[in-house]
């Protein structure tokens, strides 16, 4: 719309037309572009979330010397579509004992936080348009950044607690209490490991943290190796994945969503995979330099070909995040499930002291070496 504004200015048009063009411009920048970004981002994330399930099942197949889903479409690529359709068409049952309002609210509580966190992720260096503007590859580039992700994702636990309680049945209640204490136990080490990175980067904003890594010339996985380890373990526990999948225990243990069926169950399922993608994306930008191209002078490339640098950055980011997604599947294929008391002991007795000591360590490191 900036072209319209300029042409209106060139022709020396009436003030009213100029004003209308200004209003267009303002509307476009406050509503139009953010909305477009949100739609594109949501579509991309939902697609990735759908296909990460397929990716996981194919990989698990390979790990276990079998094929995995390969019947629906070429290479089984339409499997997520079939699964989604199945979930949508299944009967939706609300148990007689359930509290209907909370029972229906719980999947929403699980679903929203998982997707809200993507808003502050910075995907690449800003895209330069021919008219000399720069559009950031980010929906909301706010100061709070990573803190917002932590705050919002701490709400996901309510989906589990409320879902388990409102089902009006004892097994989901037990499952939800189990999950709640697990998520509480691992949220603290997770936050502390992120705090170590915030200390190193000197900002909450994800693009600042990536810039700090570029300036340092090394990704934060090196100075923050301990934080990285703590983050990995607690992230697996936070997303309820093997070997910490006690909240669900797909085959053996009864979990908080026992009474859910159809698409309401699907919401929990999608939320879990979205959380997994979010955790991978955050890990990639905190510890692996985000959209930084390894072995390339990003600043020089951006000065010469800004849009090429942006596009390559998105791919680098995606590749780094995919590494984490692969890692998730890998440990799922490798480790058996922990016992409940072992799980809580690891969280409170092992990870928490390590994470706390690491924060002090990183603070000293920052004070003496990385000034």
């Amino acid at each position, binding site marked *: 719309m900036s072209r319209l504004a300029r042409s209106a200015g060139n022709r020396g048009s009436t003030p009213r037309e100029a004003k209308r063009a200004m209003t267009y411009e303002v509307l476009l920048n406050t509503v139009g572009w953010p909305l477009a970004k949100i739609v594109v981002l949501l579509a991309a994330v939902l697609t990735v979330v759908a296909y990460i399930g397929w990716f996981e099942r194919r990989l698990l197949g390979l790990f276990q010397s079998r094929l995995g889903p390969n019947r629906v479409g070429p290479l089984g690529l339409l499997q997520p579509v079939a699964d989604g359709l199945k979930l949508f068409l299944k009967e939706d049952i609300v148990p007689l004992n359930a*509290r209907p309002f*909370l029972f229906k609210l719980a999947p929403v509580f699980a679903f929203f936080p998982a997707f809200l966190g993507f808003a502050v992720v910075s995907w690449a260096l800003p895209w330069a348009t021919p008219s000399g503007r720069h559009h950031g590859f980010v929906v909301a580039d*706010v*100061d*709070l950044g990573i*803190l*917002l992700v*932590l*705050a*919002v994702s*701490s*709400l996901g*636990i*309510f989906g589990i*607690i*409320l879902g388990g*309680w409102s089902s009006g049945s004892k097994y989901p*209640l037990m499952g939800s*209490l189990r999950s*709640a*204490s697990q998520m*509480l136990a691992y*949220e603290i080490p997770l936050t502390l490991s992120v705090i170590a990175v915030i200390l190193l980067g000197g*900002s*909450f904003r994800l693009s600042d943290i990536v810039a700090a890594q570029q300036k340092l010339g090394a990704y934060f996985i090196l100075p923050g190796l301990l934080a990285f380890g703590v983050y990995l373990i607690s992230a697996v526990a936070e997303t309820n994945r093997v070997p910490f999948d006690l909240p669900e225990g797909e085959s053996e243990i009864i979990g908080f969503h026992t009474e859910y069926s159809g698409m309401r169950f699907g919401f929990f399922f999608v939320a879990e995979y979205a959380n997994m993608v979010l955790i991978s994306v955050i890990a990639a930008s905190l510890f692996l330099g985000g959209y930084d191209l390894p072995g390339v002078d990003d600043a020089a490339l951006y000065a010469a070909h800004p849009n090429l640098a942006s596009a390559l950055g998105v791919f680098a980011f995606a590749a780094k995040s995919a590494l984490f997604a692969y890692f998730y599947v890998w440990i799922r294929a490798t480790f058996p499930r922990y016992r409940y008391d072992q799980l809580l002991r690891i969280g409170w007795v092992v990870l928490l002291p390590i994470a706390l000591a690491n924060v002090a360590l990183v603070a000293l490191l920052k004070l003496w070496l990385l000034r």
Partner: protein
Amino acid sequence: MAFLWILLAAFIAACALGVVLSRSPITSAVSLLAGFLGVGILYLCLRAEFVAAAQVLVYAGGIMVLYLIGVMFTDSEALRLTRQAHFQAWPAFFLVLALFLWMGHRLYRSEFTAEPPVLRVAVAAGADQEASAKTALAERAGLAKESNPRQVSVALFRDFLYPFEAASVLLTVAVLGGVFLAKKEV
């Protein structure tokens, strides 16, 4: 903005009423959660983004979870049958009403207003001071432009470091006391 504020305030007040008036403890807890989130949005409207995030992270995401777990372990049937309001209800109602009226009166008469007080003072003093008021306003704008977490950290770790640390010691003592009281044998 004022419209949004009224909407939010009404929402928060409704949630608060829900906490007090609901018979089911879980409904109370869920109303409290909604109220916390509403207050968080209110902070966002006041451009205190850091406080908003802390509100959601600490109150909604942390404390409410503990509340809910605690509530789940209580016998809600027995609570439902217990009479919760006694003969104190009416005197308490009038006392609280009086308190609110007094607080409202104080707030109404106070210096807190929507417009920056610097400008009001300048306008009252006359046009010659308008220039200095404008520089003061520009300073405020500069402060607002500085990142929100930075402002909070400067206040916490430079201006009010000792009270902040004293509060943390107090909290540690409280935690130790809580553990001592709750645990029968250590």
